[in-house]
């Protein structure tokens, strides 16, 4: 009885270990490096939603050249993601927000905001900022 149990258990252990070895050195994606290459490719070829100021300047060259105060700010920081607009060239897919709240997102004088010029919320209340200040000059 005893040698039979021993032999059976030995066969069982061998089977388990051989399956593990085959998986780890033959099939496991990390060891075969396949999954890493695949995923790097998938990740690298994802669809872009934002483009670049250089691409905006190809069509809107006059606006781009005239920029002064906001010259270091990229177009899509204010106008939103522009990949769709660059393909369709339609106004639907680009954001043009002239509201006070939109300007005050960056220019409201909250504490800790030292890198930009700020204004108080009471500064000409009710008048749109773009009436006096042109953001593109």
């Amino acid at each position: 009885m005893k040698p039979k149990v021993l032999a059976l258990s030995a066969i069982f252990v061998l089977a388990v270990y051989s399956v593990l070895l085959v998986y780890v050195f033959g099939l496991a994606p990390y060891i075969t490096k396949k999954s890493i290459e695949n995923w790097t490719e998938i990740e690298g070829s994802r669809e872009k939603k934002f483009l670049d100021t250089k691409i905006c300047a190809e069509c809107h060259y006059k606006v781009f050249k005239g920029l002064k105060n906001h010259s270091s700010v990229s177009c899509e920081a204010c106008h939103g993601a522009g990949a769709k607009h660059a393909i369709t060239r339609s106004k639907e897919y680009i954001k043009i927000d002239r509201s006070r709240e939109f300007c005050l997102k960056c220019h409201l004088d909250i504490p800790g905001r030292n890198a930009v010029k700020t204004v108080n919320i009471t500064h000409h209340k009710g008048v749109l900022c773009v009436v006096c200040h042109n953001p593109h000059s």
Partner: protein
Amino acid sequence: MVIDVNKCIGCGNCVIACKIENDIPLEIPLSRTWVEGYSVEETVPKAKVQKVVMNTDKNPFLDVEWKYSKVFFVPRLCNHCANAPCVNVCPVYARFYTKEGIVLVDKNTCIGCKYCIVACPYGATFLHPEQGVTDKCTFCYHRIKNGLEPACVLACPTHARIFGDVNDENSEVYKILKEKKVTVLKPEEGTFPRVFYIGLDSRFVE
């Protein structure tokens, strides 16, 4: 990536741009990059700290009542550590380093066991609510592969974020790291982060 804390104005453009670019729902409070606002009063032995986090498309910094006078904003993201705990703990080897040193998640292999969420000392990884796998910053791998900047860097109006290759001698990051004093978050964890901060009082950052 180098982040200049003095230039951050807490506008939250980076958070919204990142969420749009990487298909993270705008209204849920999970994000690949987020901005933390700190209001601090220096007292001995322990400073009083008030912390507010922006990780949705709504900016809380515009109407928050700060308790203390010293206020600063800290943009946070995955640090792409050279010795990343999330890579070390992943049981299915879904996380790996690319040739450039960027830490990526293989979403086909990831089983969503959340070990990496526990392991990350920066809280930079989270479970994607729609895909059911973990998700984190990839430095916009699909953009930098094509020679563009990451979305958060593009959207930052004050150039508080600077992206580049440290080994490339012509890059801006190389010049900054050569000249300026920088700090990293939680150096005691031994993770060797690759996101450097200029002018950060890292005592308060958790």
